[in-house]
């Protein structure tokens, strides 16, 4: 049974942190591609911007007040936080800009500011179970349904701990070199073991030009069981999972996403669907 009027997925933008493993590279990329100077921003915010600003063209029409920003992540920037934590042991002085730049909703603010949006914005901590992944999406769908927003940017972002990223994620490297690397906890055979980056979905109440229609269902009866994402990791990576859903939607006309409250989000691909590259 459908519990709400549908919303429509219009575009997907992704930024893979492996494309700019050093923060300086990320700032240069943001400057050259989007004209934004990302000084003092955390890697988390830089990546969120690198992804979201790619959706700028899709946001030209709706008025700013009618567009909201939802972001799901396990944390904001672990690296910035660890740096701030040193003040507790007296190893450094408190740096105001580090603190301000690493409030969890800072990335939401920067996205809203650069895209000139002033609808609601929300940071939700996700990743503790499969249904938590869908929390920001469900929240956005409810606002679209209620008419408080016409357009929603929904993103999932993960900043990987620096050690794992810079020292070389061997699984990612192996995948890039063409060998078969398997993520230990998620079964998709098309998504590389992405660790660090963000994925944004642009949603609207308008059907024209949409990639997919999204419905909120009270049961799984209308979704093929084999399209339900199998997630076994208790601490899943929401960025990777977002990419995994994209691949599933490319391959299947209908997929299901487990959501809070026992709900299922059903995504039906449209005939005009066009996806960005899912793999590097």
């Amino acid at each position, binding site marked *: 049974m459908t*519990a709400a009027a549908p919303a429509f997925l219009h575009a997907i933008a992704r930024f893979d942190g492996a494309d700019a493993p050093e923060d300086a590279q990320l700032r240069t990329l943001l400057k050259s591609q989007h004209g934004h100077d990302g000084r003092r921003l955390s890697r988390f915010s830089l990546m969120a911007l690198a992804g979201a600003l790619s959706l700028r063209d899709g946001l030209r029409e709706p008025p700013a007040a009618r567009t909201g920003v939802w972001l799901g992540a396990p944390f904001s920037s672990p690296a910035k936080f660890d740096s*701030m*934590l040193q003040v507790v042991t007296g190893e450094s002085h408190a740096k105001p800009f580090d603190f301000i730049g690493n409030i969890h909703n800072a990335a*939401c603010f920067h996205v809203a500011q650069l895209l000139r949006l002033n609808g609601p*914005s929300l940071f939700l*901590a996700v990743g503790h*179970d499969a249904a938590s992944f869908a929390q920001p999406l469900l929240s956005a769908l409810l606002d679209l349904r209620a008419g408080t927003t016409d357009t929603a940017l929904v993103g999932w972002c993960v900043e990987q701990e620096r050690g794992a990223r810079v020292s070389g994620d061997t699984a990612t490297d192996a995948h890039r070199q063409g060998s078969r690397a398997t993520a230990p906890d998620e079964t998709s055979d098309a998504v590389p073991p992405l660790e660090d980056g963000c994925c944004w979905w642009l949603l609207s109440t308008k059907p024209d030009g949409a990639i997919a229609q999204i419905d909120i269902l009270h049961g799984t009866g209308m979704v093929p069981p084999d399209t339900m994402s199998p997630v076994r990791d208790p601490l899943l990576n929401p960025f990777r999972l977002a990419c995994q859903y994209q691949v599933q939607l490319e391959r299947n006309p209908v997929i299901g996403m487990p959501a809070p409250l026992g709900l299922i989000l059903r995504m039906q691909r449209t005939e005009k669907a066009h996806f960005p590259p899912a793999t590097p």
Partner: protein
Amino acid sequence: MDEVGTVPYFQTFGDQRIGGTIAMDWLEVHLRETVRLAGWTPDTLADTPILLGSTSWLVNERERMLTSPGPAMFRTAEDASHLCHIARELQRRTRCRDVFSVATSCTASANAIVQGMKLLRAGLCRRVLVLGFEFFNVLTIEHFHALGLLTEDAAYQPFSGRDGLILGEGIACLALELIEDDPPVSSSSHEHAARQRRPLAQLVGMAGGTDSTSLTSTSSSALQDVISDALRDAGIHASALDSVKAHGVGTAASDEAEGSALQALKLDALPRFVFKPQVGHTLGASGTTETALLLNVLNQRQHAANETDRADCAEMTERHDIRTAGAHAARPGRAHADIADDAHHLLNFLGFGGSNVSLVLRWSMQ
């Protein structure tokens, strides 16, 4: 009020800094006690979505791990850098499947209330629990101090022209329930009994917005928009409001912006509740904390006319552990005792990241 270094701080949980395990115990106690006070059966907890709101989450445990020996609450480094740790632990303790963790700085638990209302209005559930919390930690105080936001003066007086705030810690939990006007005949006796209980208040309006002009300060116009949206959502005009629970954080710029917004909407003459002088700025917990305190004041209205009176919070449905619960009238307008028996109240919450939230609460004399 205890001194921490050279700045005052409102301590709620005693002199000792509490770590993660004790914090989790406190959170669980508040959830269970709120369920009891709401008149829900204990097993309701497993089926009721929980919406969490906080600014510092378990920073207190990260600090404890650095400064004190003993077993760590987090099993791995990844675990420690995961805000969902509390959600997962509450899932384990309560068997509740759905825990939402809202992190929008000082509006976190206010936004959690909004999210809970959205679930209820959409008919996706009948009840939600909203839990706001903030625990003492050095990291927050040091950085607020470095930002020049803290006052060293123990006299905390928002809207007075003074500049500076005092932080505090606290927990408050609200039980929200969808109550239908015409219950189905086949409803259970428990549901029937629940409907017979009168709610403390009705949440009739809500709105959130992002002020994208500044990461750290609020503009009057952006707040006016959010207040107007909340009034529109409630279906009332500004003239129908009877009081304002101001954010009233105590910094000159924020107080000026909020005061200006209230003036522009012709709300500056209304009684204005400001709770931070009694409990401190509890950051992400202020949404639930100050909503609970407003309900306490309204339900003990006879005491509220005197701004120094304290409200007894023992029998409230909402649960909170703030030792000094009371109302402070920064600009009384007319006396609180004059508030109508059936009244609408505006609640403002402002936060870093341009996050503004307004709620409209309807309260009736019981």
